[in-house]
């Protein structure tokens, strides 16, 4: 069995009386893409928010590597090696593409507010620039570095999401609909990128594009109404009657 890098047990999040996520357990393994699918409102994005610390869980535990991160803040979780991209583009629109990625790469510095570093020039930090350059290159944005992020195309902003996430050098990737709104050619490039990233990362992929899911996923978890109704190899899931009734049937 491959290494488990992230493991969540019995995660529950309730808003008032509604359980948006209900007793979900999920593992992410290095060199495997774990896709989470389900109809709108199934709780996929809430699950991602619980894992990244954007929301505190009502119950359950999350372990990243050997660390319990159950109620850790997003910045602590990020520093432990989890990177996430957002379904709704979440960038620094008034900065250039390069500055977006450079800032993400800079986040790995220790004590960044240290007064002894106030007089350094951010643009001249070779280690940060190198990490940002590599992430930009991987995401295929090297030619667009001078563009203002908010004025870039939708597809480019999705690539920028990934580049920023990669610039933090994560071991675990949570990607929330990275293909959303992309054209066919852009989506194909993104699928190729995810396959390149796979060997060194544990990846959770929330996605609606069924073709992409079956092209990429090593493991599938199907959520409906906040709960997991099936989890396993893609071929087994495809054959599962409950899943077909709840979800895949609409698309098949």
């Amino acid at each position, binding site marked *: 069995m491959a290494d488990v890098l992230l493991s969540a047990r019995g995660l529950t999040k309730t808003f008032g009386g509604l359980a948006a996520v209900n007793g979900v357990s999920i593992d992410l393994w290095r060199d495997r893409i774990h896709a989470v699918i389900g109809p709108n409102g199934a709780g996929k994005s809430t699950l991602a928010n619980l894992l990244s610390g954007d929301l505190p869980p009502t119950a359950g535990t999350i372990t990243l590597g050997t660390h319990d991160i159950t109620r850790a803040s*997003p*910045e602590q979780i990020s520093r432990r090696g989890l990177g996430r991209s957002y379904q709704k583009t979440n960038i620094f629109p*008034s*900065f250039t593409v390069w500055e977006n990625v450079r800032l993400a790469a800079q986040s790995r510095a220790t004590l960044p507010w240290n*007064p002894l570093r106030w007089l350094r020039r*951010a643009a001249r930090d070779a280690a940060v620039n190198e990490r940002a350059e590599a992430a930009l290159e991987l995401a295929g944005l090297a030619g667009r570095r001078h563009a203002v992020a908010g004025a870039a195309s939708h597809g480019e902003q999705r690539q920028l999401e990934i580049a920023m996430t990669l610039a933090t050098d994560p071991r675990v990737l949570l990607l929330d609909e990275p293909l959303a709104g992309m054209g066919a050619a852009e989506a194909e490039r993104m699928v190729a990128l995810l396959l390149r990233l796979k060997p060194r990362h544990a990846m959770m992929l929330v996605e609606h594009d069924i073709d992409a899911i079956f092209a990429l996923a090593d493991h599938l978890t199907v959520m409906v109404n906040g709960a997991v109704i099936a989890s396993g190899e893609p071929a087994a899931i495809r054959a599962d009657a409950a899943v077909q009734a709840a979800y895949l049937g609409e698309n098949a």
Partner: protein
Amino acid sequence: MSAPATHLEALPRSLQALLALGLIALALFPLVGSDFHQQMVTRMMILAIFAMSLDLLQGVTGLVSLGHAAFFGIAGYALAFLTPADAPASLWWTLPAALLASGAAALVIGFLVVRTKGIYFIMATMAFAQMVFYLFFDNRALGGSDGLYINFRPDAGLFDLEDKRVFYYFTLACLAGVYAFLRRVLWSPFGRALAGIRVNEHRMRAIGFGSFGHKLAAFTLAGTLAGLAGYLWGAQTGFVNPELMGFHMSAHAIMMVILGGMGNFAGAIVGAFAFEFMLELFKDLPAFGGFDAGKHWQLWMGLFIVAVICFAPRGLLGLLQRLASRPGLREGRDG
């Protein structure tokens, strides 16, 4: 380039040249200006330092503080307490002590307020500043509502601050030094992170920045530099009173920063000079019949600021930049 509206962080060459000219004009001014005007410009420079310190919070980090005057006043009071009634005290230890007092107050208050966001931050900073105000206002031992006199300017040893011209140049050196320092900070990793927090704090945390530490460091630095301005104010006027920490003083600083243009420190300087200049102008307005226009200077000031916000949303500096970068002139880009 259809970029989203943004602060003018990198100053085009044309503006840099204009600022250099301004510095030369300030350096030459004592040679031609009267004693009265020299003192007025000294006061403008002190307020410019105060406005720049606020700009680090307001323009760069996106934290609008309505209590910044507290740190301005604390350093002024520190000088008053440290200066004996019958002899001057040394600049070289009263200045660090005053900065330390303001910085420590900013660290403690900042620790409590930078957790709050938006309107709550505004209210919390105002509440703490009012607490500081009343601490001094209601305590006879701290000077009470009358304030305290500072009988001597600090003794610098090498130069004589009692000389108005020397004091002018000392203030100018502080202004230039603070500007150069803050411009440097703006392009440091710390400054870039503060700008990131202004634009999208949520994403900053998701990529691993502890926004609390950054905001607290910025709040403390801003409070310390406001202290430098307050110290100079106390030294120049020889007098401190609770008004220096009051709500009006904080609000004036906000208006100066908005007037000049936020997020680049040069705008704060322009704003402070423009604000004080217009204030003198409006106060000197003549009476028309039974209507004393000069007495209602606050009204004209309000209208002036509203007009600037409507016609130059990026402040006077943004307006200058727009005039300077018409087709034909290319923008210089800083790293």
